[in-house]
């Protein structure tokens, strides 16, 4: 796959179809790839990488990249194409300046899951028939591939590219995922249990803003949390209330816009399952206002920017589930 991608990228660069390529660059270790822009065949040959660890969603970078001159080639996984479409819909990306090549999605690996098994001093990770052979300073370790999959990939919603100019590899289908299972589990808890669960999780928040800054839906020129004029700006969770507020408001601001790409939870240094907040909104929207997948198209109206006259009343919240 990586070879095919590099080959195609070089062709498009050579014939002048694109000026730049966005993809992933190899790092120091087996797993620390950085999203990067390539401008030459040499760079592509020496540094471009696509493997089980290239999980970062590069679509948000296109906001910045399409503001520049020239055309850029973007390699997008199925989940990334949803983010891309949503950004097109919100006029944040200039579609004409991007050449999209759809590439197969994951499942991608989560190095933290490997490390959580106590495996350290990792020198290389090889996938041999869905068993990971991990070479470490302390000898070789193995673990099943399935146990090291990123959470966001484990509940993949779609293998289908919703937008592309060409594909490398086959296109897939929208999947019948189990992504709402955990939300449902929480819904079935008592309010006290839910409160305890979230307090335990959100109290870990260090307000590093990684979730916000990686989020393709969070492309505000100036976030309300950075803007002293907003009245709710803050830099640190100085009180448990502020931990709650930041995450509630952030989830609300991306409600109906979040494509469920899962990047927020992937990048959280404290492993807070932030995607559950977004998924709760998605589940509610699906149940109350009809199935809606943000980013699936560029024309439909976002559920919070529309209504029907017979929408349910907010009291439905009080009537269903467990108190």
């Amino acid at each position, binding site marked *: 796959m990586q070879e095919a991608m590099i080959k195609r990228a070089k062709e498009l660069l050579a014939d002048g179809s694109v000026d730049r390529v966005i993809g992933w660059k190899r790092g120091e270790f087996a797993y620390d790839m950085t999203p990067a822009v390539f401008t030459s065949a040499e760079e592509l040959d020496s540094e471009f990488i696509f493997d089980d660890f290239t999980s970062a969603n590069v679509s948000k970078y296109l906001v910045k990249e399409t503001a520049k001159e020239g055309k850029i080639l973007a390699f997008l996984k199925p989940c990334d194409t949803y983010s891309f479409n949503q950004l097109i819909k919100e006029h944040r990306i200039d579609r004409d300046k991007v050449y999209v090549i759809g590439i197969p999605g994951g499942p991608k690996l989560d190095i933290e899951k490997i490390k959580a098994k106590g495996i350290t001093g990792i020198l290389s990770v090889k996938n041999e028939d869905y068993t990971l052979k991990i070479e470490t300073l302390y000898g070789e370790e193995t673990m099943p591939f399935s146990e090291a999959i990123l959470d966001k990939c484990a509940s993949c919603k779609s293998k289908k590219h919703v937008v592309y100019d060409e594909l490398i590899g086959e296109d897939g289908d929208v999947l019948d995922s189990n992504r709402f299972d955990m939300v449902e589990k929480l819904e079935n808890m008592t309010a006290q249990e839910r409160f305890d669960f979230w307090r335990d999780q959100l109290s870990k928040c*260090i307000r590093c803003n*990684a979730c916000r800054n990686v989020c393709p839906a969070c492309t505000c020129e100036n976030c309300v949390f950075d803007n002293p004029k907003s009245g709710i700006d803050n830099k640190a969770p100085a009180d448990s209330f502020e931990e709650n507020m930041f995450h509630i408001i952030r989830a609300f601001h991306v409600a109906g816009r979040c494509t469920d790409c899962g990047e927020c939870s992937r990048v959280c240094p404290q492993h807070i399952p932030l995607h559950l907040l977004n998924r709760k909104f998605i589940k509610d929207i699906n149940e109350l206002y009809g199935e809606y997948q943000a980013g699936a198209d560029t024309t439909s109206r976002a559920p919070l920017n529309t209504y029907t006259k017979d929408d349910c009343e907010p009291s439905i919240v009080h009537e269903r589930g467990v108190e």
Partner: protein
Amino acid sequence: MLKISKSKLNELFDAVSAKQTLYIPADREAGAAEYRKYEKGMELTSELNTVRSAKDFFFPQTENLADFKIEGKTIEVKDVREECEDFVVFGVRACDARSFTILDKVFLCEPVDSFYKNRRDHGTVVTMACTRPSETCFCQTFGIDPTVPEGDAACFDDGENIFFKANNEKGQKFIDSVASLLEEGDTSKLDEVQAKTKAIMEKLPLAKLSTENFGGDKLNEYFSSDKWAELSQACLGCGTCTFVCPTCQCYDIKDFNTGHGIKRFRCWDSCMYSDFTKMAHGNPRLTQLERFRQRFMHKLVYFPANNDGEFGCVGCGRCLSKCPISMNIVKVMKALEVK
């Protein structure tokens, strides 16, 4: 050397925590440890290090500085400083222990930060030597020997026993306070463990990383390097690296209106943020490139220039594993280095 059998370690913890607050690194979940206030039965983590650094003990993320009480049209200023109670932080790694030296240079120079000093005076740091360094470790780059950590007192693990050594008076006081639980032990196995660790250190992927070409004298070359654009390209401008960093010491001071008064507090800030040091005229560093450059220039050039060659990094590797886009000081040093 005085030692305690690892099976009896909790007795020692119980004894310490009976007298003062004790913090130990414990598992929050598989693969993620954090410092926690010791409670009976709490296990020491098997992780190499905590996700958040130990700097919180002396420089917490938020800290109240003063209260203002508004009564009609008058404002009363309330001093909220209180003498801190004694506490012990156990199990600090060599890298984090060194970070206190760096923070001391910032906070204890004139004018002394009394909030920091208060905590520092009352805290005893008991370090723990490393035996299983990770691939992300590069403390040796900064002259740190993880097998012989600094701190008020140091501990060494030979697999069965924990050995204790005082590095200063405060450390000795700590050891004395638990002396009844300790016994003299044979360190031959410990020497073996240390040798083994040292051998692993040689083989670490980042073992060859050197600060030789960094420091205050290379300011212009590094500042105007054309590498910054490429390095900062993918930076999200989040504060993860800063907040997990044991040496980052920038903070902001803000006022919070509680409804019945104002709380003036400080909180960590990140030079990666677009509103960092924002002033009336705007932000002195306008682009992410400048902000990104600032962070690494500070650690690799400005800080050593102002602090007798001491770098603003201890090689703990936290930013290497936590940066959402895997950009970090190692990649910067390698890309930037002018020989």
